[in-house]
């Protein structure tokens, strides 16, 4: 077991790679009641074409299958794992993103038992024809719920506009039609390919004894055997660097217009510190331009083009990166054009040093605040680890971020060819 000390942050992290390839991290947190653990596979909705374990040919699977698998893994021959967790006083959950599927619990008692349950249920799949069919009704309602949600529609619509081929443009849950094609055989195939320990990471944060816990995990893994697994071969989608369509309009029964401007990064660094810096530089640039202390925010708010739903964020994952800026507005068209003007007229030379330093300070404070949250630590640490970056490097990376980093992001991304717009407008307008 390796110990890593982050002195400025007063944190100690313990790490060990299990013999089967599983990466395990433990972050003891004194003073907290709860322990939070995530067991995550490097597998998400975009992984819809790959070479299944033991095969040689690429295979395309139905959209939404990673998310479907996440739901189904909770069900076992003798019942539902949720029941098991709640008997042990834990609250369990799971989520699927573009590139990850995470299973988690939090509990203040029976942590050892709950951890055992978490590892075992994720490593013991049980899919049957009957339960697969039943799940289609439940997920069908989950999809319907999102269909009726204009915030989701405008968010996802903007992503769709940006991408030509990349599966990031496909809804994580799939469609009612695509999930209809899912079978238990397909689920097993995805499971065996992506849930191999060498493709997974276990993170535990809470008031725990790291020695005892690591031993428990070692013992648990030693009892199980897994086939040798080569690194998963995923299909590399050809994606043009520019956006697919400039503008998409979705009429819905809403009272308020919604508008998002999307910025597509033409390419993103693959891994490591470089990737972390690229992501941070993007965040700092957006904060500088659209934060509440920016002149643009003030102007757009005064003109009634934005309100407190206004947000901006940058998402960078395996092989793609995009920013979204927008929210509710009285005039979607004008807001879209104002945001584009701000982006296209940005010049990093005009940024004053003190403004740049202030945005960095704000980011440092926000990072410290985020570290109050065990959920944030576990989820984000895992995300960065899958890219060979380190969450705890954010602090030094922020401090050393330079204007050149911002200039590089602006010159490659803040261009007309990289910008797409999606609007949700009241039907009949």
């Amino acid at each position: 077991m390796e110990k890593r000390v982050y002195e400025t942050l007063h944190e100690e992290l313990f790490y060990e790679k299990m013999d089967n390839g599983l990466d395990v991290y433990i972050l003891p947190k004194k003073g907290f009641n709860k322990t939070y653990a995530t067991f995550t596979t490097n597998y998400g909705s975009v992984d819809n074409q790959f070479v299944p374990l033991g095969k040689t040919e690429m295979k395309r699977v139905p959209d939404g299958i990673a998310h479907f698998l996440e739901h189904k893994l909770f069900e076992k021959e003798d019942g539902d794992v949720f029941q098991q967790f709640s008997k042990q006083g834990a609250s369990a959950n799971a989520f699927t993103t573009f590139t990850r599927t995470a299973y988690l619990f939090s509990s203040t008692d029976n942590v050892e038992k709950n951890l055992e349950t978490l590892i075992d249920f994720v490593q013991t799949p049980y899919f049957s024809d009957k339960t697969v069919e039943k799940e289609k009704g439940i997920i069908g309602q989950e999809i319907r719920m999102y269909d009726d949600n204009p915030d989701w529609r405008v968010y996802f619509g903007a992503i769709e506009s940006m991408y030509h081929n990349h599966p990031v443009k496909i809804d994580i849950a799939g469609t009612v039609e695509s999930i209809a094609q899912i079978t238990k055989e397909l689920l097993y195939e995805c499971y065996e390919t992506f849930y191999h320990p060498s493709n997974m990471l276990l993170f535990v944060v809470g008031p725990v004894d790291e020695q005892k816990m690591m031993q428990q995990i070692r013992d648990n893994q030693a009892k199980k055997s897994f086939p040798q697994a080569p690194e998963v071969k995923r299909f590399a989608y050809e994606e043009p660097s520019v956006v697919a369509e400039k503008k998409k309009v979705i009429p819905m029964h809403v009272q308020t217009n919604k508008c998002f401007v999307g910025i597509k990064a033409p390419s993103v660094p693959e891994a490591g510190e470089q990737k972390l810096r690229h992501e941070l530089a993007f965040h700092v640039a957006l904060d500088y331009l659209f934060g509440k202390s920016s002149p643009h925010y003030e102007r757009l708010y005064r003109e009634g083009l934005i309100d407190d739903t206004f947000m901006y964020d940058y998402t960078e994952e395996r092989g793609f990166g995009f920013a979204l800026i927008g929210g509710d507005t009285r005039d979607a068209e004008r807001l879209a054009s104002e945001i584009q003007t701000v982006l296209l007229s940005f010049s990093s030379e005009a940024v004053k040093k003190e403004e740049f330093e202030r945005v960095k300070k704000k980011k440092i404070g926000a990072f410290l605040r985020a570290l109050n949250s065990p959920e944030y630590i576990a989820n984000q640490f895992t995300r960065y680890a899958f890219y060979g970056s380190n969450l705890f490097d954010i602090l030094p990376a922020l401090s050393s971020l330079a204007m050149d980093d911002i200039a590089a992001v602006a010159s490659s991304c803040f261009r007309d060819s990289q910008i797409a717009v999606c609007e949700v407008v009241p039907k009949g307008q």
Partner: protein
Amino acid sequence: MVDEKVTAVGPVRVHTISTDKYKTNTIVWKMKAPLAKETVTLRALLPYVLQSGTADYPSVKALRTYLDELYGATLNVDLTKKGEHHIMTIRIDVANERFLPEQTPLLAKAFQFLADLLFRPALDGGRFVTDIVEQEKRALRQRIQAVYDDKMRYANMRLVEEMCKGEPYALSPNGELEDVDGITAEGLYRYYERALAEDELDLYVIGDVAEEAVLHAVKQRFSLPDRPKRERASSVSVKPQGEVREVIERQDVKQGKLNIGYRTNVTYEDDDYYALQMFNGIFGGFSHSKLFINVREKASLAYYAASRLESHKGLLMVMSGIEPANYEKARRIIDEQMQAMKNGDFTDEEMAQTKAVIRNQLLETLDTPRGLVEVLYHNVVSTRKRPIDEWMAGTDQVTREDVVRVADKVELDTVYFLTGMEATKDGKTGV
């Protein structure tokens, strides 16, 4: 378990929770008054105007620039109702300089900032700045209208409106659209003075700080007139008027939202409060509860099917998103679960499971500064004081008889269904 020190400084109750488990320090300011049609919209606007400018930082830009300088101190405001009380909350969260290279006393600055925000707002000739008030009126209108576009929230709001017609609780904490236009900078300023003079005031400080330091800061910077003790607004839920009401509303939606309201006839004030929590936990509060198991897992009708309590008002609300055609089926299954509760048709295992999960949920809530304040604030809202340790013991001691006794008091009041334009109630598609 939680070391809360409470000391009154003039009319402000100061609650200090000293802990070193966070990397930031949190200040929460709460102002409470009865929920009433005449004031609800003024109150919904006031904190948003206050956070738009102080005497020293008279614009959002100036104010936010200052907060960014303080290592991105966060400032946010919101409005809630607890029972028939309307509560304004202002939260400031600031990094603990212990983790920073620079040793600026950030918490002291945050205190000063809060005092300025509350007592030295940006003014123009003895009233709020008209431009700010007009801007925030527009934002408030948008906030009120936004509920319409979020069908889950909309259905919740509509159920409460229908169920509590004629009671203050029917009011939304974000105010009434029709009352926004009439608000002026003068009128709002007069209300601001009145709220500062009359509201019940609570200040919570959570972080790496001792009580003496907090009290010292408050004495220095918060000077407020004493106020007569208020009559407590009665929050207790009235009995349903005879028959169960059924409200069906049609919109262009794909998923129907079935929301059902019950009167619990038990509140935070009652001895049976912990039994009420247990009742809700077995019935619909969690993923092992009857609603989740029967509506979602067994019948495959919904992605979400749950219940929650408003324990100061004494309401239980079921919510679920279903295919419009499945209305009757979903209602029948939900009714059956309620009947099972009344019949005592639940196992000892369900009892034990629910106790464990409630205990866990409470402990987890106490891990976040925000959750901690919300739990402690129940004791401000209610005349009944429940220290955190009592929550644990109280829940543990609940027996199945207690749960059945509570179940017996729960009465169906209103069924609200938001459904698509075409499906008819009995599930046949219309033409």
